[in-house]
């Protein structure tokens, strides 16, 4: 029936041209808006990052030497700390969120009774605002309240201290310590002002972020799992593969594209993270949880260092582009 009705509706040759024209015309406004409000403003920010704008009133003259602002930026101890924090946060967060997402997805894939309920429970935090998550987890990880009351009452914190695992008491949020230092391992990094280790205060933030977004990773994996046909599993079972082998050798490799997409989507979220950290720990003790976003706001709107703020924003853009652009190129090739 469908074939019968579409035939008379076939477009006459004359208006085909109109059809081809209508798409660009409809797209034009948004393209123009994008050109101005995205690329135009990126360009403006690049210019400001190369300028002498260091007060409340704009100064568009270019700095001499041209890249002096970037030079200053990378020699600012706080910004070095921010870059370290961003990278540490992103790595830890991706490992935890994607790992937990995969685990939940594989478990829920068993289709046990109530699995739908669990799926929704895991996905629900994704609907919350980062601000809500940040405030709630700040209370949970407060060194004197929240989970520490529980741990103190149950004697878990006491036990941890007794067996020499004091640092594993969940009082990290206000702990300025940084575990490890890559500067002592890799030569040539000794010029850095900041200790290249894992800031303990970052751990609660990673947990909060993973709590919120592992449900998203799980949903991605569940969608991926549903596309793997049952025939493949059956064939593997017939060949005598154990359950573990099926996952290890077949299912997980087949999920690789999902893993890459999830990593990229979550990766750019975590590189740009601001609201969660701002609500949860702020800059943290000794900038242990400071990120470029907070640095940009403070430099630009509090210190009136528009040049430095813009340069930091461009560095952040570059970091995100480093992840996004290869992904875009790859998906273009797939088209």
């Amino acid at each position, binding site marked *: 029936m469908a074939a019968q009705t579409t035939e008379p509706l076939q477009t006459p040759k004359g208006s085909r041209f109109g059809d081809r024209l209508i798409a660009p015309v409809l797209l034009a406004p948004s393209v123009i808006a994008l050109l101005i409000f995205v690329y135009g403003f990126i360009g403006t920010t690049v210019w400001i990052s190369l300028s002498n704008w*260091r*007060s*409340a*009133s*704009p100064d568009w003259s270019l700095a001499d030497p041209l890249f002096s602002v970037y030079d200053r930026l990378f020699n600012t*101890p*706080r910004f070095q700390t921010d870059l370290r924090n961003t990278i540490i946060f992103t790595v830890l967060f991706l490992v935890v969120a994607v790992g937990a997402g995969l685990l939940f997805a594989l478990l829920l894939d068993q289709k046990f009774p109530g699995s739908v309920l669990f799926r929704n429970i895991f996905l629900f935090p994704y609907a919350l605002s980062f601000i809500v998550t940040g405030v709630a987890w700040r209370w949970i990880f*407060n*060194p*004197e309240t929240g989970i520490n009351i529980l741990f103190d009452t149950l004697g878990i914190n006491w036990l941890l201290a007794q067996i020499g695992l004091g640092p594993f008491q969940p009082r990290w*949020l*206000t702990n*300025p310590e940084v575990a490890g230092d890559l500067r002592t391992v890799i030569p040539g990094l000794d010029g850095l002002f900041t200790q290249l280790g894992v800031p303990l205060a970052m751990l609660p933030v990673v947990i909060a972020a993973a709590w919120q977004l592992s449900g998203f990773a799980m949903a991605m994996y569940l969608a991926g799992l549903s596309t793997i046909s049952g025939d493949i599993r059956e064939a593997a079972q017939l060949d005598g593969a154990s359950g573990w082998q099926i996952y290890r050798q077949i299912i997980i490799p087949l999920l690789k594209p999902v893993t890459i997409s999830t990593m990229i989507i979550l990766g750019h979220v975590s590189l740009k993270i601001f609201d969660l950290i701002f609500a949860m720990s*702020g*800059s*943290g*003790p*000794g*900038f242990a949880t400071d990120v470029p976003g907070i640095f940009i706001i*403070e*430099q630009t*709107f*509090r*210190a*009136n*260092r528009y040049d430095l703020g813009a340069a930091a924003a461009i560095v952040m853009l570059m970091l995100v582009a480093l992840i996004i652009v290869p992904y875009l190129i790859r998906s273009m090739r797939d088209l």
Partner: protein
Amino acid sequence: MTGKPGARKDIEAHTVASQRTKEFQMATNRRTLLKGAAALAALPVGLRASQAAAQSTPEATPVGTPMGTPVGTPAAPLVVGTPEASLEVFSWWTSGGEAAGLEQIFAAFSAGSPSVSIVNAAVAGGAGSNAQAALQTRLTGGQAPDSWQSHLGRELQSRYVDPGYCQPLTDLFAEQGWNEAFPQGVLDQLSVGGVPYVVPVGNHRGNVLFYNRALMESNGITVGETMSIDEFFAAADVLQAAGIPAIALGGRDTFASVQLFENTLLGTLGADAYNALWNDPSMWSSDGVTAAIEAFARMLGYLNPDQAALTWDGAADLVGQGTAGFTSMGDWAYGDFVSKGTEANVGWVTHPGSAGTFVAVIDGFTLPVGAPNPVNAANWLRTAGSVAAQTAFAPFKGCIPARTDVDASGFNEYLQWSAADFGTAVSVPSIAHGTAVTPQVQQAISDATVQFLVSPDVETYRVTIQQAAEDDAAS
């Protein structure tokens, strides 16, 4: 403070005032407003004056002093010229007491210019930083309000005066006799190159050391009229020996740490050497500065263990509740004690070593270049600077008037102490509140202080600050 007949009268007065100014857009805590209303026996008087003004033509009726009887002020007119239709005032006073205080000044203004509808363009949040960002956008876009709130000192200069957004107020100051009404330390802060640019309204003191009375008593510590740095450390040692954190700090607020540092700097250096830092960056290399930083570092050994998790008010609460001995904070902390009902538990003294000085954190209002309603804007400033409006505003905001010729007898015990001291002490600016240094240097000191709290290296701290001050002076 609340007398029933007075409050009753004021409810009526307030209702009329609200009708008159239809465009009040503030989230006012009306209960607070009414509760404290008897302090404004003034308002009904102002109302009568405004009714008189409403009957005749506004421009022909200069209303002298609408509220109360000023102490020794020349009766300069508060309304000059023909008012325009509206007045837009920009501030970050949006919460409880401060919003109510602002409404007092609005009421005083309306009393003199009843036909003018007031647009309250207050922006909430971030202790003014959100408002400053919003204002910056408006000023850059040429959309100035008729007047905006500004701190004094370097913030005023670098944000507003240097870019050319503000009009000089020399004539207004002469006309209103303000050069005599405000003390020299304040005049210095509100002027750029000797020219006044802002009318100060409320005055908070930054160098106050609050302490828990019961804790001092039970540990045999006597706090006198003043306290030296040595006396302070002696007391701190006693408290520490008793297992009590001597100093409560809200390290989650960077400004609180900076404030502890600047108060200690002032207490060690004295007013003259402290003020010398702002004009000559090389002074940061003096021995006095090193001694001050060492004292600051020593204080960090007496902190509450959860300082990194607390904000300034959480730290103040430790003192109010008796879990910590002292906290060095601006006197807005007193308002916090009052709101938590612990004000009877605390005593106060100037920060160790800083007796005879007054870290003045003053808010004021400006006159923009190209104000949409210049006549109203000038009249607004005349009102805001008047004894009556300042006396009405201060108790709500929990501060004292910026003038020294006011009658403070209606204020609470703390504010009376502060007002009496303000009349005799040397007023000095603040780093933590942006009046002593430019925003760039302020940010650099904040960042260095965050670092110092974690790794207190005296020399690194001193050099970082000096470097920032020198960079700034060079640019």
